[in-house]
């Protein structure tokens, strides 16, 4: 066990855990931030995506000891009032079915749009290909990302 001081959603959190513990479980079990989801545990599905700095990362493969000073943003901290353009676009398009993968999809999409505010369809597909949606909401996700891009650029 070891002590870590983490910057999560703009707050500093102190925790005492095994250094190998993936951020996914630090968030879910220790910080009670359950919006970040467990899907596969091997970085194949994207359900656990969070932002490390400005980058979308798979929190199931990110040991707490590797985080250091970098800030972590989870779905709970993406916006203060749930009104990030990507969140708004998701509601507008009524994207979700079961909804379980969508936090990861939203976190991946929001990091992607920050880097590429005017993506083509192919760029969206490439960027999102690591996020599985078992319900098959892919066409709505793509539409929502395009809408979010347009609204941010408006």
């Amino acid at each position, binding site marked *: 066990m070891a002590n870590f001081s983490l910057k999560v959603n703009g707050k500093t959190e102190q925790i005492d855990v095994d250094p190998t513990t993936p951020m996914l479980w630090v968030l879910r079990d220790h910080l009670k931030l359950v919006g970040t*989801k467990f*899907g596969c545990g091997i970085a194949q599905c994207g359900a656990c995506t969070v932002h490390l700095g400005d980058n979308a990362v798979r929190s199931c493969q990110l040991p707490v000891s590797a985080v250091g000073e970098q800030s972590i943003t989870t779905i709970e901290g993406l916006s203060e009032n749930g009104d990030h353009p990507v969140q708004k676009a998701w509601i507008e398009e009524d994207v979700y079915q079961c909804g379980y993968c969508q936090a990861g999809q939203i976190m991946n999409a929001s990091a992607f749009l920050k880097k590429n505010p005017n993506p083509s369809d192919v760029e*969206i597909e490439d960027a999102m290909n*690591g996020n599985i949606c078992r319900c098959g909401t892919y066409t*709505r996700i793509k539409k929502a990302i395009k809408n979010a891009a347009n609204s941010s650029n408006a």
Partner: protein
Amino acid sequence: MTLIKTTYNRRSFIKSSALAGGGMVIGFSWLASCNPTPEQVNNMPKEWFDINGFLKIGDNGMVTIMSPNPEIGQNVKTSMPMIVAEELDTDWDNVIVEQAPLNTDIFQRQLAGGSQSIRAGWQGLRMAGATARHMLIAAAAEAWQVPASEITTAAGTITHKASNKSAGYGEMASSAATMTVPEEVSLKDIKDFVIIGTDRRNVDGPNLVTGKSLFGIDIQEEGMLIAMIIHPPAFGLTYKSMDADSVKSMPGIKDVFPIDVYPEGVEKQWSDGGAIDKLVAIVGESTWQCMQAKKALNVEWEKTSTLESTEGHNEAITKLLNTSSKEPARKDGDVASAFKKSAQIIERTYSAPFLAHNTMEPMNFYADVTGERAILNGPVQTPEFLEKTLASRLDLPLEKIDIKMTRMGGGFGRRLYGTFGVEAAVISQKMQAPIKLVYTREDDMTQGTYRPTYKVKYKAGLDKDGNLIAWHVKGAGSNDDLIFENRFPAGAVDNYLAEKFTLETNVTTGAWRAPRSNFIAGAEQAFLDEVAEAAGKDPIEFRLELFDRAIKDPVGDPKNNDYDPERYAGVLKLVREKSGWDGNQKNGTARGVSSYYCHNSYVAQILDLSTDVSPPKVNKVWCAVDCGIVINPMAAKNQIEGGIIDGIGHATYSEMTFEDGKPQHSNFDTYRLIRHKEAPKEIESFFVDNGIDPTGLGEPSLPPVIGALANALYRATGQRHYNQPFITEKSVIG
């Protein structure tokens, strides 16, 4: 206007409702989810009045509607309350939806499965809303001393025009709650619907996009421990022994022990399918600690039955199809002599592998079991059956078992089999502590109730004019006999023979989204395409001719046919019109058509592949659906789109195989699911507007699309696809 008899039982009207929460608790959970403004907080009712088990009305006119059925992503948590709100005649913006717990005194069929929630719930939901509206009117009539028949309602307001009186529902709620429950109530005319048939966004949307705790796996309770299981690594093995002491001292680990989930004498329900009687449980403080212990623990297993392999399954199923059944499932005319007379005979065999359900949220359940009572909460499609098994296993009366339902991260049939709920309860009982059982992805994928592996052989005979005169279908599946003998084209062919066989396997199987149809539809529709081609006919015309035969001169008693040929033909004609199908292939695209009836709904699809890329890509799917009245078109289309993508994905990429009883895929690195790049670029859905009572949509769009894809692939590449996943054959989509 339709009058219906009300059928409430006594418990529906008990004022101190047995439902979870009550009063401000409900308001709180709603507000907490939406980052409420101070204005919204002030707008919350001071008091709620129970009108019946389905709804309560606040003193300010806000309405809480209980959603009775489990939510697995089929959107019943929005669409079922919409039906109540419609008949209550309230403004949807004033409705708060709450998930009901299991309560068999109030609610009927709290089950998610078979695309039946809306169809089975339709009348009861309308009745609940209409009864409440009736009681509000009765309260107003009494207060105003005017005849109830002169009172009208609209959007949560009660009006008596003649005396110029009006009141909000909130003002009449307290007296409405004391009114006599009417023996019969009138329902709205379809043309007067203002909520049903309009797009309403998912009530959980704001919670989903902000990561609120909604799912079973999100449950956090005071003093709660985490539990994990280890199940036998292969079908045919069972628990023998382990070295528990080696991991008990690991950090955070509370206990490690074998559990008899289903000891002898426990009365199992059908929902205990796929049960593993004996498992190893690991209980600890955190998930990661349990995972570490799970990895370090050595468990010995012993062989108790055959260790089966995919090769063996395939050989055995092929052998079955080479035999003849003594009693065919259906026989019309004489296929043998018809084949002799046929100018052309087409014979093809199709197959599909086992599939895992792979819900994105792995199986999990919360349980707090003490000597006297059990409290459970989690994602299960069959809470009523889970409760019965628990009563037997824990030796508790039903009323001492409370089951709450969380939103589910997918079901697809997997959560019909709530054995994980029983496991959680048994572990909690042993620990005498609340626990949350969580499966890893590997646990989830390597045990369960797989979609059976299937094989079907079709033989069709055409006369010299290209008329279908004989049809012979022979099907088999693992622990399932596959064939729906009375579905199309039964009733449309003079000489028809259906035979079915079951291969017994110890690989556990169960319902997987659109059971049987998820394979047989694709096979049948791909075969029909070949037969139409051999007949020299347009594939849509060929099908319509058969439907016409079933309409005008059905073979056998039409009551035996499990479909309505007019509705079937209707969706096919609609999709033909919408897609501009003229039988020709346009440059750069290849089209396939398919239609199927299952779960009481009719679907026809046309799928366009872009052939100017390699491998070809699904450009667009047109989908026509007849599911009667559409409650929420926006959500209905979502179900259709999901089913189509699910069907394309599994038929193209997914399979579970076995070697010596051991599942050969345990995670998404080797078990391939469809991803963003492979999904259709566009899906457009159309509904037949016929005012017929609604049927379901969770499943019907999946089965036919596999046929549409196979048929389009043939036109794109010249190659027919017979064996799923198609990626194992030459041409695939990308």
